[in-house]
């Protein structure tokens, strides 16, 4: 569960965040403005500042926001000079935007705000829509698209000039979003907002994939209710456009009377489409809390109001329907405990007594926001500059509105030096409360102001502002016009008015915070999770609590070393000269017996009860071996068969809804594609057997402890992780070890992707795109007990979506209904339509999984959907599209539901960026830096949004690395792979490949991308680069080898087809090629997802000749990139001499 934050504003207008993992409120330091309201979503937070402008805070991440500016160069052909810059008088501008309507000369394209910076110079974009345009030849282009401009037949893409600009000052922090930079008032805000803005937090449905459904609601003083739609957060959309960040326009959907948006408005958050509202009504005047009963997707109005205990000035409903409120008396933030999907009203209010970070250290440098970075008021100068024009516009548009005059706030006017501020009556309750609570000393304020004035060029009026007036009123133009205001000063400013005598210690320890507003729209607290908010604790601040992968002191401690050393000495002393002595206890055979069920391979093809016995015995050489006997009864005749555990190649847990079963493979069974399947009655029983059997297997193969750095890693479709020790002859030229004899040992954890390198750096990616790094432990998960290491095992969770389809057929009378033809598929089915899957009958994949959301419509399915998520087609099954045409008679939509698994394993999370793919440089252990455990290891990744990233600081000692370096791309990417000589290849989401030039240890990010066209009519999905070989995989399962790769021309010349029927490819440091094959036929059955090795791969024949089939049946992923184990013969020299590329 990633941490998220709760936002709150105190009475002084300071914005604080509280992490779900933390114990302290942390001040939003860069917010130089005081805020009245905040409304948070997971990736951003909207706020209304004291100047009545709307601000947007983008949570920062390692990856900056980029967007691409485009300008089009338009040329017209004429018979004399061909294409030339001379246009007809009626033509569009020679340089224009995409529509051709706007003049857009290159030097006239300005950065939207000082927070953006150009990342590169203008360049010609030769990759249009995934297909390359002809290099440099602008004139000979395809038939031009008609773009609706004034030029009928000319003008569009051939010269598509692009330029991407971004990256905020203040490195690595998030950035603003377009017209509004942080600190600038909201975009094209038609009027100033005074009321709350309440984005719809996404509980389940609102954002699905790239298509964000969120919208922002606001009420303004004149009583208009405004809705801002499609507020993607940029981070969500794959290619953040500036528009996407803050939606399109303020569209007034309807004018509401003030009473409607006033006190009785429910500020409960509509938690999205089709999701029950957990409405909490709060009244601003009588501070009672109401709960709306019976709200659900069918009845969004609910049935009745219930009054709740407790007096709150406001309540806010966050993610997972959790509720926060601010009590009216003490103005403390309360959290509603016990809110669960089944009991939305919760049980009790519990005060959050987390201290403020500033209570502990005033320096403010110790820790920052979880996602610290760029804030509302980072650039005040811009804010004050833009304020006048904006205000002018606002006043114009608001002229009909009643609120320009401010007769209703005598209280405020009396304290406001300029008296021009206005407050909406709907916030009066808060203001009143504030004034009751505070009675600041005016004289003291003056003194304080004086002292400040000497330090900073602040307008006196600003300092003279009453701090608490910020809550609801402040003169908009009075934002301090000082851009370099640091944190301490901000603190000083906001504290000065109140605590004139204690400038150094503005917050006494007993000063408990007074809150004005809280927003949990970005705070994901799961029902039942434990928070540290409710007790004041000393100790580490939350930002220090991140787990580090460094070796814990216990493992390096001298005492530990000494114990190991002394035990070895003791054994030597007491045993060495006495080995000929007789053992006091003779080793005997030990038998464990039990009852299991066994899947009978032949008639009657069902589970039958069996007795099993595991006999362990010790040979004279001390080697241990075991035999598993399985006794069954057929036709009242007792029979048995047995398995030598030293022949077992894999033990795979097969958990499903009903059975705790596991499959047992031997080389023969692997060839037959037919494992022995056994089932236990309870999970514990199965785990006991699995632990015992796997321990016996490992013992007979003398495998113990953590896997070697050269191990081969793989993942099954169930997310189970397997690892195999490579033997020297695995990649030998002459005597290859058959793949089906490889022994696979399970590691705990749940992953979708795992990638390794021969220095023991292993990274994984979960189904929820969380990145994980291997800790060096072993065991965990269902591998418990002695087969598991004591340390380095941590809790791991994963979330995945289960999808079912709702199918409908059109008929002339009623349109689309759920009544299909008799021959149709189930109206609720799986993706294939063969299985009936209803919402009620669909269960989580196994007993390990639990539902964590309700069903929601998935809008992110390939092919697109309409507004309601439907995809249309002429018939089932066909290719679906996201809009209705005349020829469409059927439609379907995808319903998804999230489920979660909690397990443990040797993995630690690498927060905060979610990944889609990762690749670590393959190295040979005898490389030049082999003794340097600290040398940097190149690691590239693609985030789940499609950003290409390069991890810095990864080494053998610090496999987690230190930070991400963002590599700019023009489009979202899907896959990346780095070869042994720092050749970085990547595949974009449009299916084309890219080569990154000039990547080296000294220039880890390289310099530029070279576009490599994909094989004809194929969209590539994955790429893998070994020492010199480059292989790619397309979406139709074809495996391609990149031919013509030489050191001088590393991009190669052409794709050469190698094989079809491939799902995943991994090319190792010896250029060995391993894949997951789609289907493999065995003697007893078909196996989907089988580990295969390319045979006959040689330096002169890098494409190999055939396939050798290994373990299979549900394998999804393999990484051989760590296996640099060579056969003892010095093959390496041979390879170096003849290889197509020498590094």
């Amino acid at each position, binding site marked *: 569960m990633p941490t998220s934050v709760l936002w709150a504003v105190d009475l002084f207008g300071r914005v604080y965040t509280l992490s779900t993992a933390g114990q302290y409120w942390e001040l939003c330091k860069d917010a130089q403005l005081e805020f009245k309201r905040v409304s948070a979503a997971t990736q951003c937070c909207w706020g209304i500042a004291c100047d009545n402008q709307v601000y947007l805070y983008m949570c920062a991440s390692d990856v900056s926001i980029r967007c691409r500016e485009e300008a089009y160069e338009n040329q017209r052909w004429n018979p004399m000079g061909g294409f030339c810059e001379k246009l007809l008088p009626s033509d569009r501008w020679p340089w224009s935007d995409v529509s051709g309507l706007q003049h857009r000369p290159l030097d006239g394209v300005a950065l939207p705000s000082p927070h953006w910076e150009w990342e590169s110079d203008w360049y010609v974009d030769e990759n249009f829509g995934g297909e390359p345009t002809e290099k440099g030849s602008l004139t000979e282009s395809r038939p031009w698209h008609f773009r609706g401009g004034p030029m009928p037949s000319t003008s569009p893409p051939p010269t598509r000039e692009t330029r991407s600009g971004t990256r905020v000052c203040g490195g690595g922090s998030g950035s603003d979003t377009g017209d509004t930079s942080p600190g600038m008032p909201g975009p094209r805000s038609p009027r100033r907002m005074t009321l709350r803005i309440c984005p719809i937090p996404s509980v389940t449905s609102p954002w699905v994939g790239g298509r964000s459904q969120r919208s922002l609601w606001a009420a303004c003083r004149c009583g208009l209710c405004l809705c801002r739609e499609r507020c993607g957060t940029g981070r969500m959309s794959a290619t953040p456009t500036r528009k996407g960040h803050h939606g399109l326009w303020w569209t007034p959907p309807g004018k509401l009377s003030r009473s409607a948006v006033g006190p009785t408005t429910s500020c409960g958050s509509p938690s999205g489409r089709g999701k029950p509202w957990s409405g909490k009504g709060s009244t601003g005047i009588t501070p009672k809390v109401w709960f709306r009963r019976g709200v659900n997707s069918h009845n969004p109005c609910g049935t009745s109001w219930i009054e709740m205990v407790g007096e709150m000035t406001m309540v806010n409903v966050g993610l997972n329907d959790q509720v926060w409120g601010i009590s009216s008396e003490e103005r403390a933030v309360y959290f509603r405990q016990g809110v669960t999907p089944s009991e939305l009203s919760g049980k009790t209010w519990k005060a959050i007594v987390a201290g403020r970070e500033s209570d502990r250290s005033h320096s403010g440098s110790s820790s920052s926001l979880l996602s610290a970075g760029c804030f509302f008021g980072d650039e005040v100068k811009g804010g004050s500059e833009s304020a006048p024009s904006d205000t002018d516009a606002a006043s114009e548009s608001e002229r009909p509105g009643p609120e320009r005059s401010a007769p209703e706030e005598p209280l405020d006017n009396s304290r406001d030096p300029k008296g021009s501020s206005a407050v909406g009556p709907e916030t009066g309750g808060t203001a009143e409360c504030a004034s009751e609570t505070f009675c600041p000393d005016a004289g003291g304020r003056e003194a304080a102001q004086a002292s400040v004035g000497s330090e900073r060029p602040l307008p006196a009026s600003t300092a003279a502002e009453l701090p608490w007036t910020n809550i609801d009123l402040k003169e908009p133009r009075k934002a301090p016009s000082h851009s370099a205001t640091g944190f301490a000063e901000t603190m000083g400013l906001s504290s000065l008015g109140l605590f004139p005598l204690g400038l150094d210690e503005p917050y006494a320890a007993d000063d408990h915070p007074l809150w004005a507003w809280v927003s949990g729209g970005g705070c994901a607290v799961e029902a039942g999770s434990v928070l540290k908010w409710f007790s004041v604790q000393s100790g580490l601040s939350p930002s220090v609590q991140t787990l580090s992968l460094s*070796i814990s002191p*216990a*493992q390096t*401690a*001298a*005492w*530990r070393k*000494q*114990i*190991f050393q*002394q*035990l*070895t*000495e*003791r*054994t030597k*002393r*007491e*045993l060495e*000269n*006495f080995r000929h*002595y*007789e*053992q*006091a*206890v003779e*080793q*005997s055979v*030990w038998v464990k017996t039990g009852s299991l069920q066994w899947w009978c391979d032949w008639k009657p093809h069902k589970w039958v009860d069996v007795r099993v016995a595991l006999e*362990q015995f010790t040979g004279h050489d001390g080697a241990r071996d075991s035999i598993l006997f399985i006794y069954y009864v057929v036709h009242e005749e007792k029979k048995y068969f047995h398995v030598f555990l030293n022949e077992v190649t894999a033990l795979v847990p097969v958990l499903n809804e009903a059975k705790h079963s596991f499959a047992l493979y031997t080389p023969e069974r692997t060839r037959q594609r037919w494992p022995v399947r056994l089932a236990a009655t309870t999970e514990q029983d199965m785990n*006991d057997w699995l*632990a*015992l059997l796997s*321990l016996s297997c490992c013992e007979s193969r003398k495998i*113990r*402890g*953590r896997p070697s750095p050269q191990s081969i890693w793989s993942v099954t479709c169930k997310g189970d992780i397997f690892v195999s020790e490579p033997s020297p002859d695995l990649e030998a030229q002459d005597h290859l070890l058959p793949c089906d004899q490889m022994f696979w040992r399970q590691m705990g954890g749940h992953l979708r992707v795992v990638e390794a390198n021969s220095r023991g750096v292993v990274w994984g990616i979960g189904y929820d795109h969380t990145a994980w790094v291997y800790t*060096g432990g072993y065991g965990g998960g269902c591998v418990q*007990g*002695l087969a598991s*290491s*004591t*340390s380095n095992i941590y809790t791991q969770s994963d979330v995945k979506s289960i999808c079912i389809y709702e199918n409908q057929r059109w008929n002339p009378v009623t349109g689309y209904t759920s009544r299909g033809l008799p021959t149709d598929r189930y109206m609720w089915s799986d993706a294939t339509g063969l299985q009936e899957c209803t919402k009620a009958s669909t269960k989580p994949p196994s007993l390990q999984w639990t539902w964590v959301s309700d069903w929601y419509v998935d809008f992110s399915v390939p092919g697109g959907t309409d507004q309601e998520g439907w995809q249309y087609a002429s018939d089932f099954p066909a290719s679906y599209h996201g809009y209705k045409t005349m020829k469409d008679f059927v439609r379907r939509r995808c319903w998804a539901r999230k489920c979660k698994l909690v397990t443990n394993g040797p993995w630690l999370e690498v927060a905060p960026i979610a990944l889609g793919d990762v690749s670590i440089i393959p190295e040979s252990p005898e490389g030049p830096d082999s003794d340097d455990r600290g040398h940097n290891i190149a690691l590239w990744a693609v985030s789940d949004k499609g950003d290409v990233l390069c991890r810095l600081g990864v080494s053998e000692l610090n496999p987690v690395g230190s930070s991400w370096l963002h590599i700019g791309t023009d489009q979202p990417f899907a896959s990346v792979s780095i070869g042994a000589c720092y050749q970085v290849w990547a595949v974009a989401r449009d299916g084309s490949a890219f080569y990154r030039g000039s990547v080296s240890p000294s220039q880890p990010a390289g310099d530029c991308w070279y576009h490599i066209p994909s094989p004809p009519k194929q969209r590539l999905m994955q790429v893998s680069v070994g020492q010199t070989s480059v292989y790619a995989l397309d979406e139709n399962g074809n495996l391609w080898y990149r031919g013509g790769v030489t050191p001088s021309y590393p991009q190669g010349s052409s794709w050469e087809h190698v094989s079809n029927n491939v799902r995943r490819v991994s090319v190792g440091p010896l250029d060995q090629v391993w894949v997951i094959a789609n289907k493999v036929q065995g003697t007893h059955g078909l196996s989907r997802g089988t580990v295969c090795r390319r045979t006959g791969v040689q330096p002169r024949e890098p494409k190999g000749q055939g396939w050798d089939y290994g373990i299979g049946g549900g394998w999804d992923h393999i990484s051989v990139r760590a296996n640099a184990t060579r056969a003892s013969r010095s093959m390496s020299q041979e390879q170096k001499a003849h290889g197509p590329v020498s590094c």
Partner: protein
Amino acid sequence: MTDDKDVLRDVWFGRIPTCFTLYQDEITEREAEPYYLLLPRVSYLTLVTDKVKKHFQKVMRQEDISEIWFEYEGTPLKWHYPIGLLFDLLAASSALPWNIIVHFKSFPEKDLLHCPSKDAIEAHFMSCIKEADALKHKSQVINEMQKKDHKQLWMGLQNDRFDQFWAINRKLMEYPAEENGFRYIPFRIYQMTTERPFIQKLFRPVAADGQLQTLGDLLREVCPSAVAPEDGGKKNQVMIHGIEPMLETPLQWLSEHLSYPDNFLHISIIPQPTD
């Protein structure tokens, strides 16, 4: 990096080469050859000396045989102490093999318990485990176990089956994640110089301030003489399983890894050899 699991193995498979000699006054029909054996450190004398008994009984008359007992340099060996403890306490600095004298007569009633059968050893062993778990988990873990699990612990010890024993014993070594260790550490401190057979007190693995207690903390508290000998120059060795862990070693770790199968940490305090 070596794994902590290897410590468990090393501890379990610790062996003491021993030479059994029949007491000179025992009446034999012919000369009794000494008998050489590798004794498991974690086991009990009477549990692993069937071969010794058989060997000497062959040369003796039936009527001269009563209950067997062992002696080392004049000290009768208590069978209910683990073998490793006996060796560390009495013979750690002597040359190997360990010379044990076998007696069949004049059982030293005041020094030794009778050991009529293996059931007596089992009863003693199980009572130790239960006592240890009472200290560690208020007996919760051992009480939740089934009878067959108890049996498996005993059979594991009896048959010298590391896996069999640890498959169950690991449950006894677990503790709640929110704690930093057991409730109390089951330990016994033995000193040959004192009258008391051993010291056993309640001692928590984690101090009130949250710090992990170390072996040194324990000794300073319950047996200060061991770490600060009165007679100045003469130093003591603190020995477990034939090794001397550093005093900085966390007690919880020791308890999990260096306990005997009876789940107690048997710590020997012996004078530093003079040589």
